[in-house]
């Protein structure tokens, strides 16, 4: 068993970064103990990627402290780079090289012993199910295969701390599940991992603790259970045949709704928007029956009904009172500031 270091794997205090007049990070604090998985959850432009770039020595912060395993990222960047692996949403692998050559490249650049470069590359290809594609140029790979190779590249030099920047953004559900399984294996082996995501489901599934980031601020921090408890468990979405009865339906269903954390009593737990009515409840399966009975007794007929787990949008709505303002530019230039463009004018 590894001896647990008293040093946190990642520590950030009062970290700020601005691009011109845009405050990408407006002073965030993070603490990731060794051997845990930490999720940074937020919409595009919240500052997640900027935080990861600073912690991985790619960007320098304007102010504040950033340490990896006790090493200051601005004063000892090379020592930090020895200890970290980075896999990003843009799958930074060389399209013209084969999968095997990509891993050999990283092995050589991280100065593995000459005799270990090829065995290490092959071991990772095998592990990530890429052995059959090892000799093919990466440009022939599917999106999921690229992400797996990108993750493998981050592991070549066995870094004790891993950063995964939106590891599954843009992947189809099957590839996402594949990648989650791989990440869960790493976690089971004791990896320390900081991952950013826009999906509550992903953070919930992988992370021990989550920080919710909005406009460069950490607006909530806790275990997934704590965050979801504040939200209520489930959202029941009802579509009414007659929008005119919406107000009456909302009043009738008010008692079933859970009061949400961080908002005024019951506010946001029942949301009426035209003919659609969302209710956040604790126990979805049981409450949905009660909700239907209540509506039936009142003679209100629902045209549609759906039960869903809370999404990032719900977290945001309850924490900030505004929707998660995800920007549509998923293909944004990865090196330009706008890859993680914060919302203008955030204080």
């Amino acid at each position, binding site marked *: 068993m*590894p*001896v*647990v*270091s008293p*040093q946190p*794997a990642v520590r950030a205090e009062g970290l700020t970064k601005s691009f011109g007049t845009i405050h990408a990070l407006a002073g965030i604090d993070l603490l990731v103990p060794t*051997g845990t998985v930490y999720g940074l959850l937020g919409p595009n432009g919240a500052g997640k990627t900027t935080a990861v*770039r600073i912690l*991985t*020595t*790619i*960007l320098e912060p304007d102010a504040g402290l950033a340490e990896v*395993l*006790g090493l200051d990222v601005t004063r000892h960047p*090379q020592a930090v*780079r*020895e*200890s*970290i692996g*980075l896999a*990003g949403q*843009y*799958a*930074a*692998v*060389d*399209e*013209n*090289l084969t999968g095997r*050559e990509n891993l050999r*490249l*990283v092995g*050589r*650049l*991280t*100065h*593995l*012993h000459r*005799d*270990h470069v090829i*065995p*290490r590359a092959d071991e990772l290809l095998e592990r990530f199910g890429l052995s059959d594609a090892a000799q093919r*140029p990466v440009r022939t790979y599917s999106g999921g295969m690229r992400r797996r190779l990108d993750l493998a*590249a981050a*592991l*070549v*030099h*066995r*870094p*004790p*701390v891993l950063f995964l920047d939106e590891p599954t953004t843009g992947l189809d559900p099957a590839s996402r599940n594949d990648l989650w399984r791989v990440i869960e294996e*790493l976690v089971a*082996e*004791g*990896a*320390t991992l900081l991952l950013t995501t826009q999906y509550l489901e992903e953070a919930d599934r992988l992370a021990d603790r989550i920080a919710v980031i909005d406009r460069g601020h950490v607006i909530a921090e806790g275990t997934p259970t704590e965050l979801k408890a504040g939200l209520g468990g489930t959202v029941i979405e009802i579509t009414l045949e007659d929008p005119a009865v919406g107000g009456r339906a909302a009043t009738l269903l008010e008692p079933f709704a859970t009061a949400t954390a961080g908002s005024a009593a019951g506010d946001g737990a029942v949301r009426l928007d035209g003919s659609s009515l969302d209710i956040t409840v604790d126990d979805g399966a049981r409450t949905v029956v009660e909700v239907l009975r209540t509506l039936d007794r009142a003679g209100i007929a629902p045209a549609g009904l759906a039960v869903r787990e809370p999404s990032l949008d719900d977290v945001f709505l309850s924490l900030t009172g505004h929707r998660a303002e995800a920007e549509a530019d998923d293909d944004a*230039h*990865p*090196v*330009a500031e706008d890859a993680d463009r914060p919302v203008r004018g955030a204080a």
Partner: protein
Amino acid sequence: MTSTTLTPALPTDAPSPASATARRAPRRHAVADAVTMTWRNLLTYVRLPQLLVFSTIQPIMLVLLFRYVFGNSINLSDPSVDYVDYLMPGVFVQATVFGALGTGVGLAEDLNKGLVERFRSLPMARSAVLAGRTIADATRNAFVLVLMTGVGLLVGFRIHGGVPAYVAALALVLLFTYALSWLAATVGLGASNGEAAQAALFPLVFPLVFASSAFVDTSFMPGWLQAFANHQPVTVTIDAARNLVLGQPIGWSVVGSIAWSLGLIAVFGPLAVRRYRRAA
């Protein structure tokens, strides 16, 4: 700072080869890392041979065009010189100058695809990305020079100044195009992608290559153009290489070409490095 035991959080059954090998300070890896990056960049030319084919077809077509179509109508101030012998040093410089633009295009692509970001997160020498790219492009240009020599010999080109002078001529051309690589790197690191880099560099270099002594004798150009054409670095380098190849007195052209090359490196080397540091 207190020293603490850093425990790898990725335990494996077998002893880890990576941790068994003490990794040394990155400064000592500068050469090894540059070699690795050169290998990676050259591999791209092996994987995509069409890149090399397309960039050598154009100079080959120019050789054929000027040798057989225009050559007989072009006047030279020294009638004792065969036009094909006049032409080839010009083609050497033309082909490799356009090859040097690849440095800017390649760096812009690496930035655009997020590869530079990955390299910056690795414990590698920081100089290796630029060094590996410029060295790979110089290697590729050396290959192009050998190829174009072969093409020239097939269409009647002869080396009059002896082999040592010929090798010196090629070395001069390579030094000049290596210097241009740093100019291209500076432009490429400010471009959003490969096409943008190409679009920014081409109009910069086109007048240098064609308003030069590459294909025609500048003494037949209008006076105002001669003033530019005779002193700009491409002409100076072509004249130096041509004098060496033809076995003529080299005059100041060799010194002039070396001075241009060193001057370009002195200006654009630091500029490119500064842009690379800031690009991310």
